[in-house]
């Protein structure tokens, strides 16, 4: 019981941190708007209260039509990547697994590159062709990787990892080849680069409306796998002894993790380190129990990406950096620190 209280407190604190980060991120930018005003105008907007407007009407436009969309987008991407990271690390019993291990990165990159080659301005629910192509590329790659990795009726983890790596490398090579040989793409090198490094490119509420249910639903379903993921930590054989239908559940977990990753990719391109480092950091502080690890990582990942995305658009303003540069700059040293500090935990 004491443990359950601790979990509740931890989650409440993390949720408060996320709300704080969102407020701060909305407040900062070319025009800075006091957080208190943001709270008031939000409460007005949802008809919860009716505060006197102490702000310019333009401020309201900046918050609701620009910043809040982007900040929520960043939170969703961070939560999705961190949750996918937890799912894959738990399932593979490998703390080095990241959300892209099923090959999603290569597929998404190739999909996006091909979309950039096309002279089309197709759009759907506020999504341009690029995110849609990235999403489809990611899902198609998962199917290829899964079928390659399948041996009879089983999908051994090692062959899944290898197939993911190989297919992803091949698709990345095809992408590089396209960039080198297509003159239209060479002109768009900046967009390609910013997709590969990852940038939050959410501009419309309609995009949030499509992706948010998928990501939030995915995280809730991921939480249902928590107890079984703990059992998977003892190895697949032991999980089977404990009554888990290992092959079926493995595919479900891989599918939900990959779906979360594909959703994130469609909003932001390929952001590294969030899905690798956040689960680690949370596990180090709160322990490996997935019942707490999954929701805590989702909240921590969301907070982390809201903060880093704010840095990405403010440190060199008006120039905007790809957020992936910031996550890698912060994430990589932190990861090295964790590795050196916690070597004991990874005894195989």
């Amino acid at each position, binding site marked *: 019981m004491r443990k359950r209280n601790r979990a509740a407190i931890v989650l409440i604190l993390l949720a408060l941190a996320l709300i704080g980060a969102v407020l701060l991120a909305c407040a900062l930018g070319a025009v800075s708007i006091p957080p208190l005003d943001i709270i008031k105008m939000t409460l007005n907007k949802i008809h919860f209260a009716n505060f006197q407007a102490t702000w310019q009407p333009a401020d309201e436009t900046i918050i609701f039509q620009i910043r809040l969309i982007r900040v929520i987008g960043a939170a969703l991407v961070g939560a999705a990547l961190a949750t996918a990271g937890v799912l894959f690390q738990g399932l593979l019993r490998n703390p080095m697994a990241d959300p892209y291990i099923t090959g999603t990165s290569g597929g998404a990159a190739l999909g996006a590159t091909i979309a950039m080659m096309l002279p089309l301005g197709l759009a759907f629910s506020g999504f341009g062709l690029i995110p849609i192509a990235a999403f489809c590329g990611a899902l198609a790659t998962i199917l290829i990787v899964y079928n390659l990795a399948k041996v009879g009726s089983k999908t051994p983890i090692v062959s899944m990892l290898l197939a993911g790596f190989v297919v992803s490398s091949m698709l990345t090579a095809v992408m590089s080849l396209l960039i080198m040989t297509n003159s239209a793409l060479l002109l768009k090198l900046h967009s390609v680069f910013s997709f590969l490094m990852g940038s939050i490119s959410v501009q419309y509420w309609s995009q949030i409306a499509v992706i948010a249910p998928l990501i939030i639903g995915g995280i809730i379903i991921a939480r*249902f796998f928590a107890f*079984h993921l703990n059992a998977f930590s*003892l190895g697949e*054989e032991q999980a089977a002894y*404990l009554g888990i239908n290992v092959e079926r559940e493995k595919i479900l977990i891989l599918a939900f993790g990959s779906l979360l990753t594909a959703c994130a990719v469609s909003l932001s391109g390929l952001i590294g380190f969030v899905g690798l480092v956040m689960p680690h950091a949370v596990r180090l502080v709160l322990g*490996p129990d997935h019942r707490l690890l999954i929701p805590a990582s989702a909240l921590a990942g969301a907070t982390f990406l809201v903060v880093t995305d704010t840095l990405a658009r403010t440190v060199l303003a008006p120039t905007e950096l790809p957020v992936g540069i910031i996550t890698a700059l912060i994430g990589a040293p932190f990861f090295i620190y964790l590795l050196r500090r916690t070597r004991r935990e990874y005894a195989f």
Partner: protein
Amino acid sequence: MLSNSNSLFMRNVSFSYFNGLVLRDIDLNIADGEMVGLIGPNGCGKTTLLKLACGVLSPIRGEISLGGVSLKRLSRKQVAQHVAVVPQYFNIPFAFTVAEVVLLGRTPFVSAISGETRRDHEMSAMALGLAGINHLENRYFNDLSGGERQKVIMAMALAQEPKLLLLDEPTTHLDISHQIEMLELVKSLNREQGVTIIAAMHDLNLASLFFDRLILLKEGTIVADGSPREVLTESSILNVFSASVKISQHPVTSTPHIVVLPREATTNNRIAS
């Protein structure tokens, strides 16, 4: 769904991994409340037999039933609510505590949506007590010694409330005092809780001392099945293990006691006689 009569029944069971049969035409009938040891040389099919009995492997031929119900008609979860397996060893790449590991024994009873209940916590607390490791509850599994880990794994299996407990060489990694402690625990589960026990055993003397019935396997077939006195004979051991031994009587329990003869002694004996 499962009645408790006739715990494990195998008829004409064969199994192969990729090439060659690992088990051949096994007929086996283990009744409720028995305590059975599986013995035989490395690779004779002991572990495979245990994996077939709990349904993680399926036979290529033959029929296996638990409590009168064919294994094919039971889901993994249903089987795990009756059968627990104690593997030789496992490692955990993350820092789980002992309490968390033991609670995992409740996996077949825990609903994914509503999570574990008070009863699940009670059962895992009871299992910690039965295995005598209440004091280890908050330690990290990976920090424990081999003997302590084996007890945690045992407690996890007990939290499963098994009617049938399968053990794969439960004493292999343990020193002599832990070996005896482990087998005493298994025996008391059998005698006091009525748990049916099937254990693959490496040490023939311990098997003779603790088990009521031994099954001797050679190259995937059963060559002897009966009390230790019936199964452990000089000729059967020479036949199955190609080892020359002398069978004497245990000074206290008068069960068969095996004394290994070095090759030299065997040759000398032959020369002398």
